[in-house]
């Protein structure tokens, strides 16, 4: 039997913007098993980012609980949560993911340094990771010297660095042309297959949706449909 890696129960989130409550999520249930490759879709404002933030422990739900790999992260105090993120969750955001003053190598190595990986192992792992995303030759480039697609690939490599169980990506291809987007998805799919890393990513892009093996649709903060499909 497969192991549940993400388990969200009755998750609701209400923002109180200027006294008018906005129900971003309403009673969302979500089960994702280890090794899944899931797209989160839905119209703008449907709550995709909010849900990803809840799962990643970047924000707290108004009610409900979230388990990641069996740990109830909604109960963890802040410092424990940060450590939990470091060890278990990789993030890729829409854009400007990288620390501008650091090179690709340093950006990726940073996570390893936070994990106190010795320098020698670090260098080896950084190179491996960059090879996996096909950017070994950009090891000493800074984000400003990379294209948007390349930056996102470095961001994926960084998300991978800590050997997390899941990678959460909020519209990772939104700022990319279709070729770079396809390339990024292929890399993610390969990592999912080869390293058994669970991916949960939100997107608006039809071609990206087609690459997913499961598509969860949110509408008005509720799960509207949950479909398993064969990726193209």
């Amino acid at each position, binding site marked *: 039997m497969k192991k549940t890696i993400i388990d969200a129960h009755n998750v609701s989130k209400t923002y109180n913007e200027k006294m008018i409550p906005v129900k971003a999520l309403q009673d969302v249930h979500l089960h994702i098993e280890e090794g899944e490759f899931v797209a989160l879709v839905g119209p703008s404002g449907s709550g995709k980012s909010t849900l990803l933030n809840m799962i*990643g422990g*970047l924000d707290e739900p108004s009610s409900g609980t979230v388990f990641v790999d069996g740990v109830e992260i909604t109960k963890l105090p802040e410092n424990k949560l*940060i450590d939990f993120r*470091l060890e278990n969750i*990789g993030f890729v*955001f829409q854009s400007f993911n990288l*620390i501008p*003053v650091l090179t690709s190598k340093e950006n990726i190595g940073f996570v390893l340094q936070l994990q106190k990986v010795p320098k020698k192992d670090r260098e080896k792992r950084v190179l491996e990771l960059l090879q996996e995303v096909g950017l070994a030759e950009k090891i000493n480039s800074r984000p400003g010297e990379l294209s948007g697609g390349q930056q996102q690939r470095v961001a994926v490599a960084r998300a991978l660095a800590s050997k997390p169980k899941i990678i959460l990506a909020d519209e990772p291809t939104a700022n990319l042309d279709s070729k770079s987007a396809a390339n990024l998805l292929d890399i993610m799919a390969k990592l999912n297959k080869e390293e058994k890393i669970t991916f949960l990513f939100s997107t608006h892009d039809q071609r990206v949706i087609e690459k997913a093996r499961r598509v969860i649709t949110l509408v008005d903060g509720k799960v509207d449909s949950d479909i398993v499909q064969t990726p193209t």
Partner: protein
Amino acid sequence: MFLKLAWLNIWRNKRRTLITIASVFFAVLLAITFRSVTDGVYENMIHNVVSYSSGYLQIHKKGYWDEQSIDNSFEANEQLNQRLLSNPKVTQLMPRLETFALSSFGDKTKGVLVLGIDPASEKMVNQLDEKVIEGGYFQSENDNAVLVGSGLAEQLNVKVNDTLILIGQGYHASSAAGKFNIIGILKLGSPELNGNVIYMPLRTAQNLHGAENRLTSLSIMLSKTSDLEGSKNAVESTIDTDAYEVMTWKQMMPEMDQFIEADSAGHYIIIIVLYIIISFGLFGTLLMMTFERNREFGILIAIGMKKRLLAFVVLLESIMISLIGCFMGILGGILLVRLFTEYPIQFSGSLQEVYEEYGFEPIIYFSGHPRIFINQTLIVLVLAILLALYPGYKVIRLRPVEAINS
């Protein structure tokens, strides 16, 4: 390694770093310049006043100050002079024999202060020769001649080349009386002195009082920025304190000391305002820096960096930048003060006249006291570090989601 991250942030983000360094630099420069000018005004005033009067320090025979009589004089001692001059802070010595006498010309009589001076050293220290408005200055150290303050000259109704009679008491109750040729009239800054004083060469005064080779005081001139109490202690350690007493100008002229204390209190308000302005400038820069990097901070926390560690790195960055800014500020300050010492700013117009009236050079004098550079730089550094706590506080309070979406 976090030191390295801080360093990279500084080094690779040149624009931001330059702006911050510049604001620290100008803060230090401003604080140093302000302090240098305000202290410089006092230092210059003190220097001018003591060069006419007491000197910075004075050596007397023990007990002289409480009973200022020629009987409490002491023998001039060339060895002592050499020992004093071997202290690099000591710039000049002014031996004096100071007494009171009755002066008379025609039917006018007046009590006067008779200052026996070394014409050469007074000329060097306080340019006494330049205060002569009629006649001339002493030619040698035993001229049988006197210089008379212009106020006194008016009261006695004397002119250059008149002969003045002085009667007083000499050493060990001998009588002192003589006739002296008035070779010049002096106009001195202090009206009180101007109406009372007669200068004569030291030798002449010693002869008049039957006090061969004796002095009532030995005034010591120091460089403007030397530490008064420290110098006093240094002098005391070179002499026999059972036989001599050493006094500072503050002890001899407590009114002037009090005046300066009271006057400089006003500057504290100005300097506090200055520090507030500096703080706002620095704070603005830090605020801009923090705001600019909000997203970066959010991402660092999202990927697993502890807030406290991030806050520490940010603080470290500010400290490094502040140190660089302070270092440059202190260099800039030294150069600026040097520059204005070499090429002083001249007063003009009525201010110039007032200054010259009182015998001061009409320039803005910048103090180069090391204390100013050290204190002001430390104050700005402490301010900068205190203000840098704010970005750290922002990091601790940061909500990663909001930061990343900003």
